[in-house]
């Protein structure tokens, strides 16, 4: 059962020659063969790999969301328009992954074009949650989160625009770490909303996320919005005490969150026990974020998806699914003459207010903490007739996405009856992934919610 190894364990055991790479691959590929037809997690599988024991990721099998262009490996973004698209080039992040010795074991299902929070908009069928197959995995990086949860890979890559990594991580009981916007390159990724898209690790532990982020972060001349800021060693804050850190808890008094909050609130006690201070703080109503994000994202989508047609991608714009059509068209409207002031410009102003609101909170608190999603993974079919499903689902994450702030979701509660999880969302100021990792790692190591750790 070597597929159950965490990334850190696998690297260490390969380094000590305790295990063989081919045995890890065999177990991972077997678990894919066992489970993929039921859960619909991978769209494409790659069984070829090279021994790369001299490199940091050692040839380990990594799952990659199907919106990263991978040279000569079909990349669909779960859309029919791209169903035959074989990229002629490699995304920067997957190139970095390969350079570090990571091998792509397969491309994972997602909401088509990353439009959604359930995988139900995928034009290749929804993914089921491996923790409980009556439920959805969340999305849009639902396939990657599910691949991690089901041990059908050692670690995974996803992308987040507003919640697309953290929300599926919460629903699948895994770790999702969205870095600061600009920390990871967007080059070669089927764009959704260019001003917030952030390639991110989805992993079994916080430690794994830090390791993987080390290898995919950094400036990229091919992506003008990627930052030239120096990339620290993200593993440095692992195991570091959180004594005297100030933690602000937000979104605790929102309507509709009562049930999840009752389970979540007691989990904050561990921070006090570890010597941090925990205070309830007031952030601007995230309901405004829903409006802002809807407009900003639809607008950017309409522009980004304008390039897709049969001239270059074989299949025409008539193959767009309902959700993509809706988003492209609404975004066209919010950007069009006579409406842009009312919708687009207004939203960008409220966006500024929300960012300032968070920045003010970060003057008092080192990190902000909230629930990741308003509740447990929803049942199959939950998105039907819900035009705003994703926005409401990701409401608690949208401000941090619109502002570019880094954040992680870690499992913070497990319901024995349904085998489903709640996630805790930990956010920090720009470029302070180190704080996110420090607090998330301390939480994970001092509680028993992570299903790969044996802490108690």
């Amino acid at each position: 059962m070597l597929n159950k190894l965490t990334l850190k364990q696998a690297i260490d055991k390969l380094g000590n020659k305790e295990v063989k790479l081919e045995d890890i691959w065999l177990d991972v590929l077997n678990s894919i063969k066992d489970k993929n037809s039921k859960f619909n997690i991978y769209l494409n599988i790659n069984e070829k790999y090279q021994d790369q024991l001299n490199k940091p990721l050692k040839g380990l099998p990594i799952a990659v969301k199907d919106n990263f262009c991978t040279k000569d490996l079909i990349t669909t973004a779960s859309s029919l328009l791209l169903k035959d698209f074989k990229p002629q080039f490699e995304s920067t992040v997957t190139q970095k992954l390969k350079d570090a010795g990571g091998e792509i074991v397969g491309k994972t299902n997602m909401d088509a074009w990353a439009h959604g929070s359930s995988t139900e908009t995928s034009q290749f069928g929804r993914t089921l949650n491996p923790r409980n197959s009556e439920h959805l995995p969340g999305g849009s990086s639902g396939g990657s989160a599910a691949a991690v949860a089901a041990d059908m890979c050692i670690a995974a890559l996803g992308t987040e625009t507003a919640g697309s990594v953290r929300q599926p991580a919460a629903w699948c009981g895994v770790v999702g770490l969205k870095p600061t916007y600009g920390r990871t390159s967007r080059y070669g990724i089927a764009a959704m909303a260019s001003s917030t898209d952030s390639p991110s690790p989805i992993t079994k532990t916080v430690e794994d996320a830090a390791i993987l982020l080390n290898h995919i972060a950094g400036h990229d001349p091919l992506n003008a919005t990627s930052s030239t800021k120096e990339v620290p060693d993200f593993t440095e804050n692992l195991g570091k005490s959180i004594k005297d850190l100030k933690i602000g808890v937000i979104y605790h008094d929102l309507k509709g969150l009562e049930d999840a909050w009752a389970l979540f609130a007691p989990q904050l006690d561990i921070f006090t026990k570890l010597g941090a201070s925990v205070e309830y703080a007031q952030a601007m109503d995230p309901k405004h974020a829903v409006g802002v994000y809807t407009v900003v994202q639809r607008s950017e989508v309409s522009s980004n998806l304008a390039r897709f047609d049969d001239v270059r991608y074989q299949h025409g714009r008539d193959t767009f699914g309902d959700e993509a059509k809706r988003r492209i068209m609404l975004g066209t409207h919010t950007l069009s003459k006579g409406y842009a002031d009312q919708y687009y410009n207004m939203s960008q102003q409220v966006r500024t207010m929300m960012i300032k609101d968070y920045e003010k909170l970060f003057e008092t608190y080192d990190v902000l903490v909230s629930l990741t999603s308003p509740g447990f993974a929803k049942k199959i079919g939950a998105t039907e007739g819900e035009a705003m499903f994703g926005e409401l689902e990701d409401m608690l994450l949208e401000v941090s996405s619109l502002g570019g702030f880094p954040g992680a979701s870690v499992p913070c509660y497990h319901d024995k009856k349904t085998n489903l999880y709640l996630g805790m969302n930990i956010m920090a100021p720009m470029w302070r992934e180190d704080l996110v990792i420090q607090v998330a790692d301390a939480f994970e190591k001092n509680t028993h919610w992570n299903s790969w750790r044996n802490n108690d």
Partner: protein
Amino acid sequence: MKQAVNKQLVKHIAQLANIPISSQEEEELAKDFSKTLEVVDKLQKVDTKGVEMTHQVTGLTNITREDEVNEKNMFTQKEALANASRTHDGFFVVERLIDVE
């Protein structure tokens, strides 16, 4: 309540966005868009007077590169055409775009 978006407007948007839709879809989308824009309209209550817009959060400005050919990032003609639906003599074939309804 009056719908913010009617069938006519949907038709116009579809044309701008180059999205083929059926007349049944026009009706559904008009309802859908109106519902979504109701949520967006709540922003009108926020006082945004004098607030700057945020288009991006990196603080980066005017990123340029040297005007040099990067051969590593070039496609051969064959590669560039690899995913095209129709080609002719090494070119993309496209529908006529001007003078059409």
